[in-house]
């Protein structure tokens, strides 16, 4: 009977540890929060963009020429109004994603460089956080958390925009162009969410490459990235006479969207052929895009780049 008591006394230290304790999930969450503390633009820039878009409903104007209106009236008015609704949903979300992509690019280039620049890496390394945890937390922040957060921001900003716009319409200050369609709205948001998830996987190797540059360079990561890419393309052209690297860069930039649209035929929208975007989006080949070998090869390449980045952060000795 005495044995457990004695064991408890001897193990006083581990007992205290358990009380103070943390879990791997909590640690990872803390690491992600830390990124938003340091890089405030990660949440501020998309939030400001979303707020501006929502508020633009207060003073936004729509200019339509008489011929446009006639052309639209020739089609089914109800369909046209839902089409405007979804096109608005899409157009208003785009700037948020552009802002997001820009801040994420700069963030990933900076994230493993800043900690060496200000020597705080010695503080981070004085705590029981592995290099793999650190690198992954930064990658997940830039590649997953911020894009999904931006999707949510775009969703909310559109609701606010449409609410304000509807009030203006009811007061007679704005043309009654768009018509709320719940099904269309859900379909649009769902398709956009799928597209964001697809983009996360497709751009994973690019994000991992930015991190690799960030962990490698001693200064000016953006300059080194640009030099490496341009230098690589030029060197290949001169030495080999080929342009595979340029092709790869272009393909990695927009290749997935071709896959998604199911080839170049795609779909054409203009003022004579207004269809709700949600119907169009549903025809996108998500199954094919998510099953594309190129997508998963890219994810594999990203895993390799992340492993390399972790190793460099662990072994470099210039602090």
């Amino acid at each position, binding site marked *: 009977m005495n044995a457990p008591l004695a064991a408890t006394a001897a193990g006083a230290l581990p007992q205290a540890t358990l009380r103070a304790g943390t879990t791997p999930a909590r640690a990872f969450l803390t690491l992600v929060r830390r990124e938003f503390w*340091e890089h405030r633009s990660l949440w501020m820039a998309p939030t400001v963009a979303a707020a501006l878009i929502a508020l633009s409903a207060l003073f936004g104007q729509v200019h339509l020429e008489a011929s446009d209106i006639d052309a639209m009236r020739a089609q089914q008015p109800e369909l046209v109004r839902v089409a405007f609704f979804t096109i608005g949903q899409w157009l208003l979300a785009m700037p948020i994603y552009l802002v997001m992509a820009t801040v994420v690019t700069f963030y990933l280039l900076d994230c493993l460089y800043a900690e060496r620049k200000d020597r*705080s890496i010695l503080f981070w390394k004085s705590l029981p956080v592995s290099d793999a945890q650190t690198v992954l937390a930064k990658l997940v922040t830039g590649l997953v958390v911020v894009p999904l957060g931006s999707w949510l921001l775009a969703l909310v900003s559109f609701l606010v925009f449409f609410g304000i716009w509807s009030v203006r319409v009811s007061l007679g200050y704005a043309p009654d162009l768009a018509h709320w369609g719940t099904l269309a709205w859900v379909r649009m948001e769902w398709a956009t969410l799928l597209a964001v998830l697809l983009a996360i996987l497709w751009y994973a190797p690019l994000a991992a490459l930015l991190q690799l540059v960030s962990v490698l360079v001693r200064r000016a990561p953006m300059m080194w990235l640009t030099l490496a890419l341009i230098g690589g393309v030029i060197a290949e052209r001169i030495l080999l006479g080929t342009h595979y690297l340029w092709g790869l860069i272009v393909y990695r930039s927009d290749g997935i969207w071709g896959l998604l649209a199911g080839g170049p035929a795609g779909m054409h929208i203009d003022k004579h052929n207004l269809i709700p975007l949600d119907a169009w989006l549903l025809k996108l080949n998500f199954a094919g895009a998510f099953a594309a070998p190129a997508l998963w090869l890219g994810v594999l390449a990203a895993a390799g780049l992340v492993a390399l980045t972790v190793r460099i952060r662990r072994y470099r000795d210039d602090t």
Partner: protein
Amino acid sequence: MTTIIEAQGLTKRYGAKTALAGVNFQVEAGRIVGLIGPNGAGKTTALKAILGLTTYEGQLRVLGRDPHAERDALMREVCFMADVAVLPRWLRVSQALDYCAGVHPRFERERAQDFLRKTDIRPHSRVRELSKGMVTQLHLALILAIDARLLVLDEPTLGLDLLYRRAFYDTLLNDYFDKERTILLTTHQVEEVENLFTDVLFIRQGQIALASPVESLGARYLQLTVSSDAAAAARALRPFYEREVFGRVALFFDGRSAAELAPLGELRTPSIADLFVAKMQGSAP
């Protein structure tokens, strides 16, 4: 007694330069060890090896682990502080606490907060708004709250004024140190902290020049002060270092008995600072 750090033939080369040339030393539990050496002697390299921050050749065990291979596990029980510049300037005090509480299984937030309440540091302040002394206080607060077995301090009070330095070491001794913990400390201000050390490790040109508990220094090293004209007799006993102070000569002996030296002049145990200078500038042992 538990051995906390054990190094055998620890070697580190940077290209052609040898920073550590096969050093051997041990650090036992419950000791405060001063790692003392001139700039470029290999102090920081030794600390980096112990903390798993660099690769090395030879044998090194810290808390029974290989520090480089098992770094992540080791850092749960080891804490270190490089110098005042490493807390990032954008960090808020409250964020520093949140972060440590989130990632460190042995961090007790209340302890850090109790200590911070006694200072002028406000939870909402950013590191960039704090003075150098306050940044060190903040870092100390974090360290006090971590239940570590080994604390490594590399020039922790660099650039601080005397009041902050004194308060730093007082806190360390009174609120942190106990028989379960071990502290390894490097500093240039040896005079100020020599009463703190239980052991000293002198390092010179990548080699250990002296490794000894402080209490046994007196049995081995003696400092004899004589007038210049009486110096010749003392020199015959082969001091390893001598220096002239105000027309008198201080001679340092290794392994001579007090009975042998006492008749020649004024005899005492050298201070650690004096012994350090003597060992660094005198003939190699």
